[in-house]
């Protein structure tokens, strides 16, 4: 339908309606390589739904989502992940009964078939990758801790780590600093700035201070449509944005 693009992610005319209610309405959205893009907007704007559509959790009503020129709307969830899209959920989604190490091991992108998982060996190469990822997310001392015992912020980091170990081309994070302390927010901002190199990152966030610290570009979503887009300053001074979102 649409021609090939240079964008990592190209969303065109994307619509999804739930019983007639359009949660996402003719959305056009583009994401470049190395870009860290933040989507903001009031509750119920459709932000999470956009991520659901990209990662295949929700099927679109119409429109196209191209990732590295591959059409995602026809692919199943695990195929989309294997193509290089990683997604963190709004509430931390980790395996609470497993240790940090096991959480990362399960996310390690080999042995993903039944036979592969039965034969999988915890080799030194695997451990090295796990250790490296754990230190990136500041959990290197908690490898043997049961994930359920981590603080809320650490759980968020762990889930980010579970994505990083797969080295995705597109990383999508739904409210990554929710429930974090001020210090943890700073550390997360630093982490995101570091990991956005060499890939594209799409972040949904409410905390404007945090957005300011990380965003290359900002898009404001409202009732399933784009209200404004641009750099932080442009968006913050947009009267429409102030009215529906920032004003209160």
């Amino acid at each position, binding site marked *: 339908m649409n021609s090939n693009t240079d964008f990592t992610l190209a969303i065109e005319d994307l619509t999804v309606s739930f019983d007639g209610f359009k949660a996402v309405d003719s959305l056009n959205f583009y994401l470049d390589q190395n870009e860290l893009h933040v989507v903001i907007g009031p509750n119920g704007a459709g932000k999470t739904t956009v991520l659901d559509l990209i*990662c295949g*959790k929700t099927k679109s009503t119409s429109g196209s989502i191209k990732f590295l020129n591959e059409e995602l709307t026809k692919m*199943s*969830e*695990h195929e989309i*992940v*294997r193509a290089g899209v*990683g*997604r963190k*959920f709004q509430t931390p*989604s*980790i*395996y*609470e*009964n*497993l240790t940090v190490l*096991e959480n990362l*091991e*399960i*996310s390690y*992108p080999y*042995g*993903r*078939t*039944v036979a592969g*998982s*039965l*034969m*999988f060996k915890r080799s030194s190469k695997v451990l090295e990758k796990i250790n490296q990822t754990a230190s990136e997310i500041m959990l290197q001392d908690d490898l043997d801790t049961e994930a359920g015992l981590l603080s809320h912020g650490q759980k968020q980091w762990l889930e980010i780590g*579970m994505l990083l170990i*797969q080295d995705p081309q597109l990383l999508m994070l739904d409210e990554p600093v929710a429930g974090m302390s001020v210090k943890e927010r700073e550390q997360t901002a630093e982490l995101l700035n570091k990991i956005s190199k060499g890939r594209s990152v799409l972040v949904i966030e409410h905390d404007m201070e945090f957005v300011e610290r990380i965003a290359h570009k900002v898009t404001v979503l409202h009732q399933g449509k784009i209200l404004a887009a641009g750099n932080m300053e442009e968006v913050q001074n947009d009267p429409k944005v102030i009215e529906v979102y920032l004003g209160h």
Partner: protein
Amino acid sequence: MNFVYEKMMGGKKGLTGFLILATLILVIFPLFLDIFRLNLVGKYLTYAFPAVSLVLLWGYGGILSLGQGVFFGLGGYGMAMFLKLEASSVENTKIQSTPGIPDFMDWNQLTSLPWFWEPFNSLTLTILAILILPAAFAYIIGAAMFKRRVGGVYFAIITQVIAVILTILIVGQQGFTGGINGITDLRTLNGWDITTDSAKYIFYFINVALLLSVILISRLILTSKFGSLLLAIRDKEDRVRFSGYDVSNFKIFIFCFSALISSIGGAMFTLQVGFMSPSFVGIVPSIEMVIFAAVGGRMSLIGAIYGTLLINFGKTAFSESFPELWLFLMGGLFISVVMFFPNGLAGLWDDYGHYITDRFSKSKKTKEDSPEIVKKKSDESAA
């Protein structure tokens, strides 16, 4: 090699548990029970196969099947069909209007062997059927359900319905299946009399060896990455899916494996008990199998075996004197286990087992041990 050994035994604790079980069923029971009772225990131990399969499927995979009796039955019937054909030689059945076919077929005016009975003339094909057919059937059910993301209660109900349908089919198609009476009068296996005491001993030991192998293989599976994934799917299916796994394939595999295990149990049942009937296929046996696993502790492979033995000893003891009471008792036991001991016998052992082991070790050691422990504790608090 060492690595595989470690995983099978599950470390020192796993090894101890395995050895205690092996000693009990491999040495103590055969030494102290007469052949009648040993044969009874052997029968109970065939129910342990589906119970163990439910630990894998339900305890670890979170997939509750209320139809394991189907697979137990398929295995049992497969073996029974072979034995029945052998018992129905032309010579043995010459008084029938059609000699050479099983008696119940003759009673139902069948004049030739149905096509699907033909393969069961061969022991090799029979064994293959026991190993493959139930797993293949599970594959079809699993693919149809799990690919469509049917799970939880719906899956449980559907397996239950399949158990009902199969029972109705078996009972209704008397001429092909032997109906409500099942397939009876099984006497020889390749000419060898299976009703003798020595045959019963041999089957008991084969059964135990198979059961212990199933435990070891299951441990290998559970300690692999597949095992962690099974738990992960149970607790956070979406996270697994969005980590790049095709979750349905993992569920299908464990369902097929559980069917295979149950089927082996069914085949061993027929060999030891000498008949197979629809009363081991339907809802009641399928639910009983879940109770065995729950009472044993649904996360414990070995617990499932103790759960099976305990309930069946209880059933035998009680149902002779109070047959009606037993059902209520078992129901009550099941509810109280679910409510108060969710980890079953295995959980009790984990919580209170050390009182017993402590007592044993205390009686051996001298009193000087205790100050040492106190000292260790004070060291720790100082550090």
